[in-house]
């Protein structure tokens, strides 16, 4: 059974998530008092404030939260699947595939919908490549899968550099924002939420099997877990999550790697707890980071990746140091 402590932790994280969203709606480069904010929410007062809250801050905060949740969940799933702390969608080349797909369609001058579609296709192609090649003629091992992923990621990296050096100057800025990952260009947040919630619901019952899988495929098989279908399902879901995150906000790195680890250091390695906790902590981290990115040096806007790293690295190192 899930312990009482686990439920408290989840509630705490949920509260943190709500607080981060509130913070994101309250602060911005235009300062707004709480009474002005409540007037704006009620639809009265200066129409400018209403516009700021409902057309700019809220959609962006929701996109940030969902993207953070998607990435952290994808990272958590991959780390269990590969039993390797380094596994995350970036290391394994999934987001590299998504980036190549998106950049190729930008290079061809296609519209936003096509960019999202081809990012998704690129992520799936990368998944199939990694999984298919890692399997080879025999069975796959986590090391082999990780190595294949790393090499394919390097390959995508080269393709990206090649495309960037060929692209005309007027397409280049758009492509660069996209590679850096930036929520100021986030399209609508709804796709991200529509994927995040069902995937979380699907993975929650898998928690027990994933706990067993984390001990190794042989033990898992001995305990009656259908390892191969489970592995395929987890990898497929993780690439879906990554593809949607990347199409929403470009390649925001780091969240998928660091959030699940932080939570494991604090909460232990029970996947039934880690998976939902990752969604909430990842969402809160990215929302807070994005809020800081757009207000810290306003009106100058920073890329969100700078802040996620500046917040995440010291926290992570502290937790790691303390956990010895």
């Amino acid at each position, binding site marked *: 059974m899930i312990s009482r402590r686990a439920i408290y932790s989840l509630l705490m994280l949920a509260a943190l998530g709500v607080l981060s969203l509130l913070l994101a709606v309250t602060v911005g480069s235009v300062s707004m008092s709480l009474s002005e904010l409540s007037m704006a929410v009620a639809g009265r007062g200066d129409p400018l404030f209403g516009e*700021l809250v409902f057309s700019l801050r809220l959609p962006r905060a929701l996109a940030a939260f969902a993207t953070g949740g998607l990435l952290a969940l994808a990272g958590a799933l991959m780390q269990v699947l590969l039993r390797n702390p380094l596994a995350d969608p970036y290391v394994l080349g999934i987001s590299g595939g998504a980036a190549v797909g998106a950049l190729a369609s930008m290079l061809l001058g296609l519209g936003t919908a096509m960019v999202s579609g081809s990012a998704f296709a690129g992520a799936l192609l990368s998944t199939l490549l990694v999984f298919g090649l890692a399997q080879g003629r025999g069975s796959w091992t986590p090391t082999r899968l990780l190595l294949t992923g790393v090499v394919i990621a390097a390959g995508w990296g080269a393709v990206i550099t090649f495309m960037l050096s060929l692209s005309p*100057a007027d397409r280049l800025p758009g492509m660069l924002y996209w590679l850096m990952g930036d929520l100021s260009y986030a399209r609508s947040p709804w796709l991200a939420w529509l994927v995040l919630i069902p995937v979380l619901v699907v993975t929650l019952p898998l928690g027990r099997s994933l706990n067993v899988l984390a001990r190794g495929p042989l033990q898992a098989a001995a305990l009656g877990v259908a390892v191969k279908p489970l592995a395929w399902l987890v990898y497929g879901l993780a690439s879906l999550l990554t593809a949607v995150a990347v199409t929403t906000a470009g390649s925001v790195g780091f969240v998928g790697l660091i959030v699940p680890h932080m939570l494991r250091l604090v909460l232990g390695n029970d996947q039934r707890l880690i998976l939902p906790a990752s969604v909430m902590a990842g969402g809160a981290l990215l929302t807070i980071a994005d809020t800081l990115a757009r207000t810290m040096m306003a009106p100058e806007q920073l890329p969100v990746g700078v802040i996620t790293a500046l917040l995440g690295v010291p926290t992570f190192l502290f937790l790691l140091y303390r956990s010895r």
Partner: protein
Amino acid sequence: MPPARLLCRCLPLLAVMLWLGSGLARAQVCVTDDTDRQVCLDQPATRVIALSPGATELVFAAGAGEQLVGAVSFSDYPPAAKKLPRVGSYNRLDLEAILALKPDLIVAWQSGNPMEQVERLQTMGVPVYHSEPRRFDDISTTLERLAVLAGTEAVGQGAADSLRSGMDSLRQRYAEAAPVIVFYQVWEEPLMTVNNAHLISEAIEICGGVNVFGELAALAPKISREAVLAKDPEVIIAGGMGEDDPSWLEPWKQFASLRAVQSGNLFFVAPSTLQRPTPQMLAGTRTLCSHLDTVRARD
């Protein structure tokens, strides 16, 4: 006269004035922008935000500097532009700061601003003029159109005409001049030049020069020093990191085989006068032409 009668007498006049006033207010101004979209305003713009340093300069030149209420970082010309409130940098706009200034016209840079952000401003009801001057005549056209939108036609038309006539007189003067093979260096690391579709190349052409890399496919191609050695241009002209920094010319001096180096034909032209699509290019083109004259005289 009793107040009531005064009112009666004045009422028709008042009505006529109101009617005229509302007629003026409804006088829509419309222009086509560089992306062939119609930009219409119900009345001339009074609160303009320019989203690139070049656009800021164009708005000032069109006579609408008074109406500018915001600009992006590095908008430093004319000096008055430095005092404008900032709304982020050209590639990362602060949408909140922009909306808070309540603009009634935004001049965007089509190939430099993030399109998602500009589109969001448009969907929120702010009229956007997309600017992307590619030829000298586009600069004059932009001045005219911005002046129409801001209701400063007299100034804008004057600026546009003087730019056109200045360029025309240079064009006529150098129409028969002996061609000079020119290499223009737009950036140092990586080494970059421009092709014939670029404004700088048009300036070279007006002065009777031939852009040695004009036929390359990219607008601003990256090239190697070796490629320059192979083409052996008669003159090398470079911009620089500042308004008075000819250091990019130094590395060329080690290649004594270059014709340009042998005859000392290495020239610096301040980048602000040649690398921004604004009326200042007239001055930059004049400097460029005089350098090419020097080259012809040395032959």
